[in-house]
């Protein structure tokens, strides 16, 4: 099958409006007859389900949590970008587009990214209309803050809980449609396969996680809004339940997987404290506005950080990247921290941490306050007290969270931080209309690969999830469904449903029948270690080849020795997890294959063989300016297809932050 991204012809600025003007429409009477299945209720899923319900389609929405409000979008902290230019600082749709393409290290599609920037402003309008309480200035207008990788203030926020507020906005719109009868909600349900008939997606097999019962659901189209797959690394900032299962099942049914190896490692997370660690907690990127990152100049320096004098500290980001300092993009900051720790300069008990220090910021703000209040001859204690109050107002909730987890007071002792897996830019390959290579099967939000290239900029994930759900899919889906108005609802007694349900049932029975000796959790941890060591922040040919062998071995062990307690027909969290881990193992292998194939360094993908003399990432545009789209073919093998990237407007150059 050829890969056609279906980017509309014409000038970049007009592609989306031209598309919208000419796209096929479905009349209201026909919409009532068309059924749509939405998997996942995060920003992409909730906004899509609500918007499609409003249009009059019959929607069924599914989530594995007990309520759609708990999807992991809720945990996003920092903010959402939009090209509003409310600050009069020169922002525009073009600049947001440009920053995103450059930030993604020139591995995304111009057409898609431009559309994203174009609809960004309407997202803010929509959210405000829903009653999302964004931060405001005294004049009553919306406030903005800055984020990494940009020179304008375009980030809208609600304290450190922006994701929560945006999701609750989308959730309330969804609940309203449920009340109106346009959407039927299935919580504590997990999609376990896609049903295809004559090559088109026609429904799903889902499992009721309370009773364990399998269910068949028909849909004229199926939308996967199931998030990212960072938990393939076991430890990540993702929620415990975040998983790849829906996307992976789609992949095995013919949907290509785009750039699976593109993973974002976030530089500022609370470090691992022991073997029992179950997940990692992010400390918002906004902290790098004021915090300074350093390690001791002496290796294995065991002194308390406050006892290490100024001239014995190495502020390595400021040293290596004087132009951007502590605000270099995420991929660069993460690699620099790893480099210092690998060289033996790490701090804390595990030596896998660096300091994020607010002492200077507290003093600087304290002096400003002293000036503002005309306090003469202020002593050190007064300055620190006043400065602390300012820092508390800006970052109080984050400092509190840090203290709860570590038991240390970050106002007095520098935070210890280390990079952690946070987001996956890769995902199901989709065209301009967000359709996968399976007709009628769509992927939205983090579940697709489309807009962030090889590295996502801060505050852009929320923007993309809501853009896809509120403003893209309501148009593009109609273009497909307009040809489906003569397709009556297919009864779920159709043989395709029966066969798919049988396959799902056999797999569950097989998992339960293994009765081995090793827990699901233990296999997941082992997979995580392989992935983090060999397909994490730095990758090389030998390591990746070893990883592929190790994962194959792990897969064999899993399917012969996993132990799952309990029964099939009851609430059984271990069984739920077993299915997800089995899929993660297969995905892990594909990620390593993709990383092995891409013999260049770009964005979050760093191949050690491909670096400059100063240790910076070296991209190879002549050989790798393409999307790697992996097909699970009829022989059960992964086969790569290339979608060549074209840059008509932005000219790729080596990123430099020095």
């Amino acid at each position, binding site marked *: 099958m050829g890969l056609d991204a279906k980017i509309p012809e014409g000038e970049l600025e007009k592609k989306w409006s031209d598309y919208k003007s000419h796209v096929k429409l479905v009349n209201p009477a026909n919409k009532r007859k068309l059924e749509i299945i939405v998997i996942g209720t995060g920003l992409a899923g909730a906004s899509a389900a609500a918007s499609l319900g409003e249009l009059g389609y019959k929607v069924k929405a599914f989530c594995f949590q007990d309520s759609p409000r708990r999807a992991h979008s809720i945990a996003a902290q920092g903010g959402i970008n939009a090209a509003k230019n409310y600050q009069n600082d020169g922002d525009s749709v073009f600049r947001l587009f440009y920053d995103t393409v450059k930030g993604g290290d020139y591995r995304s599609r111009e057409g898609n990214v431009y559309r994203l920037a174009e609809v960004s402003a309407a997202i803010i309008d929509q959210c405000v209309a*829903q009653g999302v*309480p964004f931060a405001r200035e005294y004049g009553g207008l919306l406030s903005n803050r800055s984020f990494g990788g940009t020179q304008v203030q375009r980030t809208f926020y609600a304290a450190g809980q922006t994701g929560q507020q945006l999701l609750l906005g989308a959730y309330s719109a969804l609940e309203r449609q449920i009340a109106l009868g346009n959407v039927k909600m299935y919580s504590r349900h997990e999609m376990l396969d896609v049903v295809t008939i004559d090559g088109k997606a026609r429904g799903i097999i889902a499992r009721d996680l309370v009773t364990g019962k399998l269910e068949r659901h028909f849909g004229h189209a199926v939308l996967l809004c199931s998030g990212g797959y960072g938990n393939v690394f076991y430890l990540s900032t993702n929620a415990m339940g975040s998983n790849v299962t829906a996307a992976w099942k789609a992949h095995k049914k013919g949907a290509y997987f785009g750039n699976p190896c593109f993973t974002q490692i976030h530089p500022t997370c609370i470090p691992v*404290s022991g073997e029992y660690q179950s997940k990692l907690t992010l400390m918002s990127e906004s902290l790098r506005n004021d915090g300074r990152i350093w390690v001791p100049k002496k290796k294995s320096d065991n002194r308390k950080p406050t006892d290490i004098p100024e001239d014995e500290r190495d502020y390595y980001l400021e040293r290596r990247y004087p132009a951007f300092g502590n605000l270099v993009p995420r991929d660069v900051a993460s690699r620099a921290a790893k480099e210092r720790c690998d060289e033996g300069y790490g701090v804390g008990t595990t030596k896998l941490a660096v300091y994020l220090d607010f002492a200077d910021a507290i003093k600087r703000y304290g002096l400003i306050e002293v000036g503002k209040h005309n306090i003469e001859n202020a002593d050190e204690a007064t300055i620190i007290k006043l400065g602390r109050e300012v820092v508390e107002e800006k970052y109080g909730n984050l400092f509190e969270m840090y203290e709860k987890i570590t038991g240390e007071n970050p106002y007095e002792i520098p935070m210890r931080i280390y990079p952690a897996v946070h987001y996956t830019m890769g995902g199901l390959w989709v065209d301009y209309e967000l359709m996968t290579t399976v007709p009628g099967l769509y992927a939205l939000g983090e579940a697709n690969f489309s807009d962030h290239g090889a590295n996502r900029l801060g505050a852009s994930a929320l923007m993309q999830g809501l853009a896809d759900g509120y403003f893209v899919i309501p148009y593009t889906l109609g273009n497909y469904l307009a040809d489906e108005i003569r397709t009556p609802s297919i009864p779920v007694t159709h043989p395709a449903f029966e066969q798919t349900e049988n396959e799902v049932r056999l797999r569950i029975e097989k998992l339960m029948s293994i009765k081995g000796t090793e827990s699901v959790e*233990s296999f997941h941890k082992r997979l995580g270690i392989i992935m983090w060591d060999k397909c994490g922040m730095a990758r090389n040919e030998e390591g990746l080849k070893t990883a592929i062998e190790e994962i194959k071995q792990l897969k064999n062990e899993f399917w012969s020795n996993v132990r799952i307690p309990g029964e099939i027909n009851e609430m059984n969290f271990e069984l739920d997890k077993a299915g997800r881990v089995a899929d993660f193992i297969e995905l892990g292998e594909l990620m390593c294959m993709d990383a092995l194939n891409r013999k260049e360094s770009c964005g979050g993908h760093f191949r050690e063989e491909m670096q400059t003399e100063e240790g910076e990432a070296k991209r190879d545009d002549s050989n790798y300016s393409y999307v790697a789209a992996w097909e699970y073919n009829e022989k059960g093998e992964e086969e790569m297809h290339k979608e060549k990237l074209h840059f008509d407007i932005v000219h790729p150059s080596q990123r430099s932050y020095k």
Partner: protein
Amino acid sequence: MEHYNMNLKLKVWRQKNAEAKGKFETFEVENISSEMSFLEMFDVLNERLVNEGKDPVAFDHDCREGICGSCSMYVNGKAHGPWEKNTVCQLHMRAFKDGDTIVVEPWRSVAFPVIKDLVVDRTAFDRIIQAGGYVSVNTGNAVDANALPIEKQKADESFFAASCIGCGACVAACPNGAAMLFVSAKVSQLALLPQGEPERKTRVLNMVTQMDKEGFGNCTNIYECEAVCPKGISVSNIARMNREYFGAGTTAE
């Protein structure tokens, strides 16, 4: 932070399903690090139970960052455990000492039936939101975001009310099993904003009606809800909801 290990006795509520009769089961756990989170201590216990061929303890949890509202354990007689303004996923073992006995129960309320062990059904909250916890605005109908300035103080107050994570600790802690703090937080968020104005009266009436229908109790000003709320939602929201309710009741058709 001084690190130490401890041995503990856990008394955990076990209940096979909604119909079964539950009971406490006692477990001894050893070498628990003070740096572990409370849920990681349960992970250690569950890993052991799986290895022994027993059923692990079922509990709801997801983000483990105190924001999704999934986790819901009643620890030593307090919703979310001993720390102030905290979810149980953020509770860490340094809150306990060697030799302690810890009693862990599910949320207890008529409106939150137990599904299994520590897992309860909180879909009543979703149905209350369905009754009116939204602004009726379809996608694409919005005007420019800055066309509607909102007083900063009101926007901030609205935000504080909106920071509710819907965990249900307020209900679990209330001797009457009332959901007033949860419902009033949503009513307040929207009553404080001009966007909420057109539906202000019907919203509060419908949400309160649904709340009563779900079997939640009445408020008798005990304020246990505020004391256990992980986000520190203030009971002043309940007072606001009562004003909204009586105001709406006397003027609505």
